[in-house]
């Protein structure tokens, strides 16, 4: 059974989370604050941590900054709606995903499944030579992209962005993360704009429309995610 650690100080929402996760057959451990949360993470080695950003003893962002590199687990941060900047910061610091309160149960379970899958592929390592999702095929050896078995031309930047998203399939990548991983500069406004244009071109080449984002899903103001549904 997969282990999930919940770090949350609100008793009621924690009870709801525990009920939901246990009925979905996960093993749940819980902590009320950041310090005991860290200790439990070290002693129980859970697969996933659900971290509330507003803890009594820690600012959630600080917690991630301090412990991210010590913990193997995927971290899913839980934020209130108006803590938008915090959400982006948490992702930049290495959180794997986020949930916005109030969220519905199905959404939470979906996020958990994605995180587990992502962890699996991280353990195996991306040694595969080819990636396939729906009509899209990427050949990592030849650096080629096919849609419906027809090659589509991508610029080197577009290719890099696409493969970065694919390698993080299911995970929301912030603009800063993508820019740093692809053209490697510190992220300024013109980079952000360039990234948006790259994304627009990619979407067009992948023939996806705003009403059915088949491959790349936009999280406005946060970043992009390669679809995994």
């Amino acid at each position, binding site marked *: 059974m997969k282990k999930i650690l919940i770090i949350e100080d609100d008793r009621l929402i924690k009870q709801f989370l525990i009920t939901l996760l246990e009925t979905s057959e996960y093993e749940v451990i819980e902590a009320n604050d950041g310090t005991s949360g860290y200790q439990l993470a070290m002693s129980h080695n859970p697969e996933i941590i659900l971290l509330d950003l507003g803890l009594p003893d820690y600012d959630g962002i600080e917690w991630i900054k301090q412990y991210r590199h010590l913990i193997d687990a995927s971290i899913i941060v839980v934020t209130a709606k*108006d803590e938008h900047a915090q959400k982006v910061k948490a992702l930049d610091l290495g959180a794997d995903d986020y949930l916005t309160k109030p969220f519905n149960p199905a959404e939470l379970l979906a996020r958990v499944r994605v995180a587990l899958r992502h962890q699996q592929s991280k353990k195996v390592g991306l040694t595969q030579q080819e990636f396939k999702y729906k009509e899209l095929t990427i050949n990592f050896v030849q650096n080629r992209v096919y849609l419906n078995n027809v090659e589509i031309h991508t610029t080197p*930047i577009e290719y890099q962005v696409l493969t970065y998203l694919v390698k993080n399939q299911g995970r929301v990548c912030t603009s800063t993360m993508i820019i740093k991983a692809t053209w490697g500069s510190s992220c300024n406004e013109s980079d952000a704009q360039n990234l*948006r244009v790259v994304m627009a071109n990619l979407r067009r080449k992948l023939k996806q429309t705003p*009403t059915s984002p088949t491959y790349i899903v936009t999280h406005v103001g946060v970043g992009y995610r390669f679809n995994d549904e």
Partner: protein
Amino acid sequence: MKKEILMKNCGYVFVGLLFATLFSLWLDQIKFPEATIILTYLLTVFVITILVDGFLYGFFSSIVAVGLFNFLFTEPRYSLNVDSFDYWYTFAIMLLVSIVTSVIIQKLRKETKIADEKEARIKVLIEISRDFFQAIRLEDAVKAMENGLETYLNHGINISLKESDQQDFKHYLTMNNPSINMHKIEQCMQQADMIQDNETASITNYYFPIKSKTGSLGVLWLTHEGLIKNDVELIEACCGQLALALDRQYWINKQHESMMEIEKEKLRVQLLSGISHDLRTPLSTIIGTVQTIIDNRAHINDELLTNLLENVTNDSKWLLDSVENILSLMRFQESNLLLDIQPSIVEEIVEETISLFATIKTHFIKVSIPEETILFDADSRMIVKVLVNLLQNAIKFSPVGSTIQLNIIKKKKNIIFEVVDEGIGLSDHEKLRVFDQFYSIKPKNKQQRQGLGLGLSICKAIIEAHQGFIRVLDNQPTGSKFVFSLKVKEDDDEKNIDH
């Protein structure tokens, strides 16, 4: 320059005396009495002192006039000797009279000059203070003062004012490329007294503080060959005027702020009293329903239970939406709507909006969007909020199974968003009021709760903060069309990156 003036003055003296002598010779010829000749010379000295600036010329002319009179017109002629002792008396009187008149005239001249200067200064001050009271903006007041002083001093001046609540100075410069010495300006601010700083032997930097009762507000500074006391006094007086004008501006702003504060407070009270009732109703439903379920679990069949729980879910969602809207509204009022403006892409905004309606099965949302990539500067999340609000309204007020269109049209430099429904539409009266706060229309569908009337007023606030506009029109044959328009990012309409 000085030599020329000297030559000119000497010329006046020479011509004057020559003319007087020739005239006197003629008078002597036709046997006029000596007294006339004396008066002629006195008159000449008088005229010379009026024409020529400088006491010495008058004095010199007096002596020469007496000498000439002695030499040419007293016995024995053509010698400086005199026969009669009477003449010495005449000479003395003549000399005395001419010297005294020249001194008096000189003094008069000087006083007239001082009076003229004074008048000019007063004129400058009057003009400046008149302009101050006409000036509405601070910049205008400063400009007026700079112009006034510039004309008077014939020299550019600079004014550096401390920005309120900030450490920085704002510079108003009229001199050509002056080097700003911040250290001296700060020093002058602190000392609140005039500072002179000799850059070279002839050029001096002057710093005048602009001080009000609350402390130094800024510094007026200029580079000049040398200011005389009167100039310094005038500049100080002007600084005083400017300080008064600044103080006045400050209090006007303060008053404006407190008025705004009162307005905000009023709105807040109105908001709270307006919504507290509306929030209680769904809360009562939720609490009552859940309590009923807990108390009577055994007597409630599954169908009824599902029904009741669905009501709870609906009311909770309504509460969530309302609270979101209330919070947005309060945040806008608090911070005058701080936007996170970024280059944004239309299709991403549409994608996010549509994804939020993925679970809606009652209505069909049809999207039409241009092929090209449209970039525009906006707070994407806010625009998503507007679209979500408009679509939610459209769903609420149109029959199940109908189509709602979301059209995006690019027209020249504008991008236009349209949300079109096939619902009941709005009367002209409703159209006028639909963007007002707390104005809401009861949905025909009795299942739904009436809104708080905040959604569209928030949309309007967001769009207007983006310098756009939002309208409501009729849709043919039935329904409404909400339209808002934003500016496309200039010169970046189409951009591709290829490396």
